[in-house]
């Protein structure tokens, strides 16, 4: 489908085969929200990694990626902070940093692109990292767990690992802006017509629901700027999903999760009740691969996903 970019303008490193992918040992950047208000995401990611037979080496001294907000204050600080994180991965012999957040993916990839495309910016970052003896050589690739699932594990292998298929559960994908846009930074798939989440939903035995809201914004980043703005954006998108038959939503982004799970109740006045439970990507994959549902932190969600799982005979 159409893109405003020429093929050579797209990010080219999204599908790269890293050394980490050969050794199944990856650098892991969980991001702030998975360590704070969405701990269930962190826990289910680690349980999923066990099932997949991969090792996620957490970069414990890493900083926040900048979360798109740090750019609003200073042109360089997010880039240099991320260079520090990549230097830590390199020091551990890892050339692949896996994220579980769309915003981390987009902003860490943007920083890495800026560094790797300009010797001047790389030298500038390394001059600062040198103050504490660190150095980034530029060997790291940043990818989301979603891409790892499809490129390194493979959809066929994933399908064969499913022990508890989703019994046709109608799941609407919600991508989260920063894993697809801009294409010049992400480029793993078309930002206008992505299908990676749909492919995973189908591989797990679910039915993917198509709707226009899947590539739209959840409003997370402006939830505090003006009252009612994020809930309107959430309501608009969840209304579309619900009207197209969705029983649940899956997202690779904990920021989208916070907004979609948290604001549907507030959106009901304008958009009608939707009450769609929101799954973190690793929760639903881990469930289908046999991780016990009670270990996935489903009780932490504001909209309890267990009701819809009972209705599809997924849990008792």
């Amino acid at each position: 489908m159409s893109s405003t970019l020429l093929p050579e303008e797209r990010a080219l490193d999204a599908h790269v085969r890293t050394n980490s992918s050969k050794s199944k040992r990856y650098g892991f950047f969980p991001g702030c929200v998975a360590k704070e208000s969405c701990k269930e995401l962190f826990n289910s990611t680690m349980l999923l990694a066990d099932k997949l037979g991969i090792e996620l080496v957490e970069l414990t001294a890493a900083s926040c990626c900048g979360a798109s907000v740090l750019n609003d204050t200073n042109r360089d600080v997010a880039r240099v902070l991320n260079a520090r994180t990549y230097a830590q991965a390199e020091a551990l012999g890892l050339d692949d940093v896996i994220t579980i957040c769309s915003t981390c993916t987009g902003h860490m990839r943007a920083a890495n692109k800026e560094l790797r495309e300009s010797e001047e910016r790389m030298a500038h970052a390394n001059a600062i990292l040198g103050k504490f003896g660190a150095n980034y050589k530029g060997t790291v690739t940043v990818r989301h767990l979603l891409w790892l699932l499809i490129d390194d594990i493979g959809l066929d292998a994933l399908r064969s690992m499913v022990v508890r298929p989703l019994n046709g559960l109608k799941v609407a994908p919600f991508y989260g802006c920063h894993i697809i846009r801009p294409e010049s930074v992400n480029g793993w798939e078309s930002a206008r017509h992505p299908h990676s989440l749909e492919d995973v939903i189908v591989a797990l035995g679910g039915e993917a629901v198509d709707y226009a809201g899947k590539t739209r914004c959840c409003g997370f980043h402006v939830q505090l700027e003006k009252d009612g703005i994020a809930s309107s954006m959430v309501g608009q998108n969840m209304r579309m999903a619900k009207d197209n038959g969705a029983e649940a939503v899956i997202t690779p982004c904990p920021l989208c999760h916070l907004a979609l799970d948290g604001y549907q109740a507030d959106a009901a006045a304008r958009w009608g009740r939707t009450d769609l439970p929101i799954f973190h990507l690793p929760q639903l994959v881990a469930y289908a691969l046999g991780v016990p549902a009670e270990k996935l932190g489903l009780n932490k969600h504001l909209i309890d996903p267990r009701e819809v799982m009972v209705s599809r005979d997924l849990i008792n």
Partner: protein
Amino acid sequence: MAKIKLDIFRFDEATDTVPHRDEVTVDLPETTTVLDALEYAKAEVDGSISFRRSCRSAICGSCSMSIGGVTSLACKTSCGSAMEEDGSVKIDPMPNFQPMKDLVVHMDPFWDKYARLKPYLQPNDADSAHATERRVSPDDMKKLVDVANCIMCATCYSLCPVVSVDPAFAGPAAIAYAYRFIEDVRDGKRTDRLAQISEDYLWLCAHCYACSYCPKHVDPNDRIIDVKRATIKDRVMMNERGPRHALVVAKTIKQTGMLAETEVIQGTVGRFNIRGLLKVAPLGARMALKGKLPPPFLKPVPKVDEIRTIFDALEAPVR
């Protein structure tokens, strides 16, 4: 040659209460632009199909419409690239605008937001008939040329999710065009412009990059960030939630290495803004009941001194 099914939104505000769709099949190569296919359909099949167009070369910005669900210039999009599996090309008027007739929309809100930012140079000189040339260095001009490529096609505005829920938001094109004058060394109204665009909800941009689909690579998303940085640098309207939010995020990252959610909420809304905090309280209470509240204080990540060194070396502002 291929049979291309143009699936066209039809509506006339003068006579219709609800829109309908017409399917027009044209026998043309898939490489045909959507605009050429529409011109062919209008000339050979149905002369009443209405759409705006002029240059046919992605310069005039008239023919923006929703093609296959995403706003694009019809003259820059091939039928083949936007074709559904059944061979149809779905064509609608731009979203976020009121339809007038078929693919023609009322552009007034878009122009109004342009007009508000006074899109012309306002030099500092008291004497408008200035005696000398106003020189701009190549480096200073380089900052402006990308934005000057804007053809006001409103693709970005029509795709903006914030505009779709809050029409008070200036929208990406207007903010990018504000940048064009804010960063122009000849302009004398920088502070006024920054205040105006802040009032028009500069900080309501949701960072979604929908405007990265710009057909002219103006990329308003990046210019919006530039304007926000300019307001912080010049300390314009610093008590708004937007700049408070950005600076408290920076502060918590510098202190702990992490974005500390609890402190960011308090710092953005205002620790003593009881009414504001009460508005966030119901969601906070719902999260607390589920054991989902972020911790009130964060332990700094290992080697947090390195992070502080980076902030200090770059003189990055924090609150």
